């Protein structure tokens, strides 16, 4: 028999681990429920007499027919294009509004506040329909002397009343209100000392914002912006209501023609899921870019592990190297 001392120091502890019967029961129940749902998804509807049926409960044959058909694929492209364009409008205008809001000029900050108040306070669908019908209150748009001569004008029926413009304006201007708040939060999160350091080096205001504040604010700005992009992808379905042939519009068409609702819904859902997945991967890389110079274990999140192992085959100890100073150093 060993002495007490050596047991204390060298022997790893051998103890009976705590049992968790509750976990096993809950897991089993969940497994059974999951099996039942899966069974309905992958099975055909049985006939009245109990014979195996020929009709998929989820209409997989129709889903397969629809999903890569030309109208659906084009609709998916249009949805992506609409999302990106509306987001670009939202991000560009949102940044301007955020800078206005943080400006010491009360006229500018007041304007920005009012903008956010209005566009955040009315439903997107109302805004889209508003832009769709704008020509009824402003039949022409012109450039000239205020309250005076108009030198150049155009017919907004061609510009605004098009459903494309209405959708982009409605989605983009609404998004700008939300993005401006995200930008503002990001810029306020940057330490005041950073601005003072830049000022003490003689950097003017705009240069300080561009070189010091925004790059650091980006770390705070990117995650909610990723959320907004994905949210926009789904909100863009509203554009179908003013006749833009995107995914939801295609569903409506198919449902009206075939009286089948679930299969086209599944088809467009799969498209939405696919695009969301691609966007999430993109977000991971953008976040990694703006994480430059920030060390800390908190950076290693589950998604980070999964994605880095998928997209960056193991190089020396994964995404981060641990140096002798036990400081986390990003890979070069």
């Amino acid at each position: 028999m060993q002495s007490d001392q050596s047991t204390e120091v060298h022997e790893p502890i051998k103890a009976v681990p705590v049992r968790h019967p509750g976990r096993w029961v809950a897991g089993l129940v969940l497994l059974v429920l999951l099996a039942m749902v899966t069974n309905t998804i992958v099975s055909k509807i049985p006939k009245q007499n109990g014979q195996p049926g020929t009709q998929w409960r989820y209409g997989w044959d129709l889903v397969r027919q629809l999903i890569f058909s030309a109208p659906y694929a084009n609709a998916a492209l249009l949805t992506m294009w609409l999302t990106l364009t509306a987001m670009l409008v939202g991000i560009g205008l949102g940044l301007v509004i955020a800078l206005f809001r943080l400006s010491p000029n009360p006229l500018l900050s007041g304007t920005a506040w009012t903008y956010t108040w209005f566009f955040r306070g009315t439903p997107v669908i109302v805004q889209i329909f508003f832009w769709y019908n704008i020509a009824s209150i402003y039949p022409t748009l012109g450039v000239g002397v205020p309250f005076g001569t108009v030198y150049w004008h155009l017919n907004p029926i061609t510009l605004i009343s098009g459903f494309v413009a209405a959708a982009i304006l409605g989605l983009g201007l609404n998004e700008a209100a939300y993005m401006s708040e995200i930008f503002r939060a990001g810029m306020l999160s940057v330490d005041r000392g950073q601005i003072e350091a830049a000022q003490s080096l003689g950097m003017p205001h705009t240069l300080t914002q561009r070189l010091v504040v925004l790059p650091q604010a980006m770390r705070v700005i990117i995650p909610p912006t990723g959320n907004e992009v994905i949210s926009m992808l789904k909100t863009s379905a509203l554009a179908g209501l003013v006749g833009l042939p995107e995914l939801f519009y295609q569903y409506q068409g198919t449902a009206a023609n075939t009286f089948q609702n679930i299969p086209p819904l599944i088809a467009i859902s799969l498209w939405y899921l696919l695009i969301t997945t691609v966007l999430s991967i993109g977000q991971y890389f953008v976040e990694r870019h703006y994480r430059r110079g920030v060390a800390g274990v908190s950076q290693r999140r589950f998604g980070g592990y999964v994605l880095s192992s998928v997209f960056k085959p193991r190089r020396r100890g994964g995404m981060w190297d641990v140096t002798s100073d036990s400081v986390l150093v990003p890979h070069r």
Partner: protein
Amino acid sequence: MSTPVAQSPSFVSEDASRPPMVLAQDVRKRFGRLQVLRGINLAVEAGTVTCIVGPSGSGKSTFLRCINHLERVDAGRLSVDGTLVGYRMRRGKLYELTDRQICKMRADIGMVFQRFNLFPHLTALENVTVAPLRVRRPPFSFRHPIRSHHARRAFKEEVRREAADLLERVGLADKSSSYPSQLSGGQQQRVAIARALAMKPKLMLFDEPTSALDPELVGEVLDVMRGLAADGMTMIVVTHEMGFAREVGDALVFMDDGEILESGAPRDVLAAPSNPRFQAFLSKVLT
């Protein structure tokens, strides 16, 4: 009570043709109802090191921040190298400076902060080069595109070279591609000093440069500052390091409650402090 300027002729401008680097005359500053500076009179000659000591809340950091206009002065006159800080005198009237003019003035004054304030998204070298590259770089000229392009490229190379030299001077030549988060506090503060020096300032302000450091890291920063003083840099140092003040300082200023209560050559005032509040302060600090 006589003003500190009159008290200590050793660092008052004798030569009227050459103004002192920093001249404060009855400088006052209040934050809301709190009077932070109650009339500061001080002259700092070019090439000297002035250490400002005093209990926390005595207004020493505020005074330092007034010198490069991070805080605006409420009353009195403050000038650096003969030019008024933050204002311009024209036809007997004071005009506020524009943002651009203030930046131009600040570019000649280096500042080192207690919390380093390095830019965390830039490497040590980028931290040092970013300001000269963006602020000092000659503009592109459309009248002489080729010549100005070459001038700009040469300038960029020169800034890089000088930045590398500066990092070597503060002993961090091997850390130029490290991010601030990978450096110790002392190393970060040395990069911050190099960053300020990269603008080739005529005056350096240090706001408690060693107060946020672990004790064993204080020495390396003080060594860099000592070297800077030996090279003839004009420095104003807000500090609690009495040893540094005694050894390197040409003048020691004691501030309390927004006033300068005692000033003079460090050895003299530390050996025989006359003001009772300074005596009390020293007895707490020097134990």
